[in-house]
């Protein structure tokens, strides 16, 4: 029963939750949290589907899936660092972290 499909369903639900959070929330860090949820869901998908291949040496399916998930985690870390730096910088000038106020560049 527990094929990769069950895990993929969980990942899809998590991804949907992340999309909801990224679009609906107003606080900048809350949007960042939702983005992290989406990235985690994608990593779960990678690992679940790579399980269909046997574990061999070299760049084969299962090892490639897990290696890519590690890349994903590292890139998520880098992106979080930069995004938080941007949020702090904006907070310093605008005194708020609410995305509704980040609309100075109006035409």
């Amino acid at each position, binding site marked *: 029963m*527990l*094929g990769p*499909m*069950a*895990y*993929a*369903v*969980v990942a*899809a*639900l*998590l991804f*949907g*939750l*992340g*999309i*909801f*959070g990224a679009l*609906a*929330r*107003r*606080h900048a*860090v*809350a949007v*960042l*949290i*939702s983005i*992290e*949820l989406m990235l*985690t869901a994608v*990593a*779960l998908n990678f*690992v*679940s589907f790579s*399980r*269909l291949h046997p*574990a*061999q*040496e070299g*760049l084969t399916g299962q*090892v490639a899936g*897990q*290696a890519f998930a*590690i*890349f994903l985690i*590292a*890139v*998520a*870390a880098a992106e*979080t*660092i*930069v995004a*938080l*730096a*941007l*949020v*702090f*910088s904006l907070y*310093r000038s605008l005194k708020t972290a609410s*995305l*509704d106020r980040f609309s100075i560049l109006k035409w």
Partner: protein
Amino acid sequence: MPVEVAFGVLSLFTLAGGVIAVGSRNMFRAALGLMLSLIGVAGLFLLQNAQFLAAVQVLIFAGGIAVLIVYAVALLEKPGEPLEAVFGKLVPVAALTGAVVSGMVIAGILKAAESSSPPAAVPARFIGQVFLNHLLVPFEALSLLLLSALVGALLVARGSGEDKH
């Protein structure tokens, strides 16, 4: 039977953490819900015998990124500020989009063939060898990315250089 129980419990943790993370009015509880969700996903990795990845997930995501987010939430709160509505104008659109996307993915999944191969463990050695033999250029590019992210974040967060001490 125990595997299904463990899968059910861990998926419950993951999805509950996700719901708390996107739905909570209190930013701190949202950050802790994210941590719960990340640890649940690490447990799901462990169930599929991806041990190295589960350890890396807890180490970096829950022990690094979650700390950064909790730090940001703790530093960005303003004392005495009334709790503004944390949901903007796009709530119905967002809920619809999220439901549509996950619904499409789940429909696609359920249509595909069901296969339950038993998970085989990947030793960490294989992943290391892949990183150093086949994926060497992306690996070095990743370290360059992390370095530039660090330097960039420091420059951006330091401000424009005026020292108002």
